[in-house]
């Protein structure tokens, strides 16, 4: 059994045009500030994509009013998902800092 920290979370996305270019960059940047592996999906059954891959997140094209599912494995997994859920619930208004972790 692995003792690595695991977490799952979901957030309802109301952003007016969905996960388009600017929100995608913010989400990816925020994911990259955490050491855990983080994945994103539109359903609990997946398919899951790497939330740290800007190419994957941008191609994901999640529309407005969809539930985003997150899962994370590794250090600070819970903290990472809490931050990502907050970003989505705050409608991507939060500035993701100029410096990476």
């Amino acid at each position, binding site marked *: 059994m692995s003792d690595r920290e695991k977490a799952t979370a979901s957030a309802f996305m109301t952003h007016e045009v969905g996960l388009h270019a600017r929100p995608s960059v913010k989400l990816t*940047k925020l994911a990259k500030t955490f050491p855990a592996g983080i994945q994103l999906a539109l359903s609990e059954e997946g398919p899951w994509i790497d939330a740290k891959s800007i190419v994957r997140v941008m191609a994901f094209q999640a529309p407005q009013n969809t539930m985003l599912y997150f899962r994370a494995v590794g250090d600070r997994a819970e903290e990472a998902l809490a931050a990502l859920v907050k970003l989505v619930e705050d409608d991507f208004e939060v500035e993701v800092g100029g410096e990476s972790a």
Partner: protein
Amino acid sequence: MSDKVGIVIVSHSPEVAKGTADMVRQMVGAAVPLAHCGGNPDGGLGTDVAKIVTAIEDAWSEAGIVLLVDLGGAETNSEMAIEMLPEERQAKAVICNAPLVEGAIMAATEAWGGASLAEVRATAEELSPA
């Protein structure tokens, strides 16, 4: 000097180069070294080796820089600009085979997270058809 890979945008049009750089700045922020250039020495559409060399110097990072270029001459002039760099810098300056605007955003986002030169280039090139 930044420890993040720098981004250099080269277009035939100064306006396209600046607009692309504006998008990178707004979407990704100021933490990634960024420079842009466009236009020939007479101010018309085209590219200029000397301007590209200056842009590379402006965006220089010890982690290296990637160039995003538009059409034909932008690529050949960028190759010439790289050859004019000091030898120790030449291996750390690479041209991405990627669309200008999309490639610049993708590369800058990856660079922001502290990725290596090879990773930044690969991310930009993921967009291109195999």
